[in-house]
């Protein structure tokens, strides 16, 4: 096994790992960019396909089974299995990994888009209809703004899932920092641990960036929505 390649397991490896990061910032940066490219492409596909579908299903309050079933089956699909299966179908390289990661991202996007729009207070939608808003206006001006917090949460979960899974794509020619992690023969344990630390920082960074973006884009956010809803119920 790999154990033959290195026989010393010491926490001192971390010093070597940090040295590896310090010595190869350009190389690691380029690998990180590759990974972001792959993850971004996969996320974009999932958003384009699953986002509108979830919103439409939620608007018509139909297909709860589909939305929830997708998330259950999606969770049960191990990323390694998806990547390996798509490899046998689409061959090695970028496309196979992009599709596999897009499938992974579909679950959270679809489920959250559905339940966000489905959960919008029906009284509010009814009132909007009474004011003469068209179906399109109801979706874009009433339902989407009210559904935004939960929708964004789904996108954030999908984004972190995809970024965190992208290293595994390296076993199927996906490139990115995973290339270093799976190639202990060339980079030794210090390189592997160094690249792992970079991957950790990357996905934590994506999580934090998207979380703060949510707070900025929705000042008052969920809170103000709740106030408005309660007010509406009192009026009834």
């Amino acid at each position, binding site marked *: 096994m*790999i154990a033959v390649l290195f026989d010393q*397991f010491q926490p001192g490896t971390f010093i070597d790992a940090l040295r590896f990061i310090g010595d190869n910032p350009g190389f690691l940066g380029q690998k990180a960019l590759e990974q972001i490219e792959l993850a971004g492409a996969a996320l974009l596909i999932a958003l384009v396909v699953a986002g509108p579908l979830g919103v439409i299903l939620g608007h018509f309050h139909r297909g709860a089974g589909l939305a929830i079933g997708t998330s259950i089956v999606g969770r049960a699909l191990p990323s390694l*299995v998806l990547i*390996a299966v798509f490899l*046998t179908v689409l061959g090695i390289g970028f496309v196979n990994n992009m599709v596999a990661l897009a499938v992974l991202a579909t679950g959270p996007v679809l489920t959250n888009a559905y339940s966000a729009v489905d959960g919008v207070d029906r009284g509010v939608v009814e009132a909007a209809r009474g004011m003469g808003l068209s179906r399109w206006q109801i979706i874009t001006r009433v339902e989407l703004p009210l559904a935004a917090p939960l929708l964004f949460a789904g996108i954030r979960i999908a984004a972190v899932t995809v970024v965190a899974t992208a290293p595994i794509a390296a076993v199927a020619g996906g490139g990115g920092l995973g290339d270093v992690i*799976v190639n202990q023969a060339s980079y030794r344990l210090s390189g592997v641990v160094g690249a*792992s630390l970079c991957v*950790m920082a990357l996905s934590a960074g994506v999580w934090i960036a998207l979380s703060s973006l949510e707070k900025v884009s929705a000042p008052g956010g969920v809170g103000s929505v709740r106030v408005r809803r309660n007010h509406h119920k009192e009026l009834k």
Partner: protein
Amino acid sequence: MSHASPPVIPHFGTASDCVLANRPFCSDWVRAHWQDTLGPALVQHVELTAIAVAIGFILAGGLALFAHRIRRAEQPIGVVATLVYTIPSLALFQILVPFTGITTTTVEIALVGYSLVVLYPNMAAGLNHAPADVVEAARGMGLTERQILLRIELPLAVPAVLSGLRLAVVSTISIATIAAFLMPRGLGYPIFVALRDPAPFKTEIYAAGGLAVALALVCDTALVVASRALVPWTRKGLAA
């Protein structure tokens, strides 16, 4: 990576036409290698998952009770749990190697960590689920804090705990496939072996992958059935 035993890539001398041609699915290979490859991998996978979820369950329970008692700890623990969950599994396994080597311990530490951070938020939310006036009424009736916890808060937490358990079991089964990158255990190993070949052996990928997905779905369904029996008053069992 090389592997000493068993010969997972079939001997070409005795392989069937199907295996030689690497057709999509060769049931003869699955039958021939159930005993030496797929069966043991499935058993190992169940072991890895069961140990990780059991230890994670105990630790998360303790942590949730701690946070319930000392409310100020709740938010920091939640933030740390979320950040741990964002750590890519492949990276976490490798980062633990300098500490514990290429051992089952390394794999289990990582798997326990993931199941812990999935279970904790659900348990914490579950304990806070009891309506404040119910707790207040109980206190007024003279129940001690201990009795309130045991008779009111814990029973009301059961549905949330069970849905957390479902998530933890399914995600641990998924992450355990990646553990096979570190050591030859679980259903991920046949997949990694097949992927190492320039022309990946399809049957092996589909059989091992199918078993992993089936295991996850069976466990998920079993827990849904169990939760319907345990807490029949909540009917939304399916929507975690």
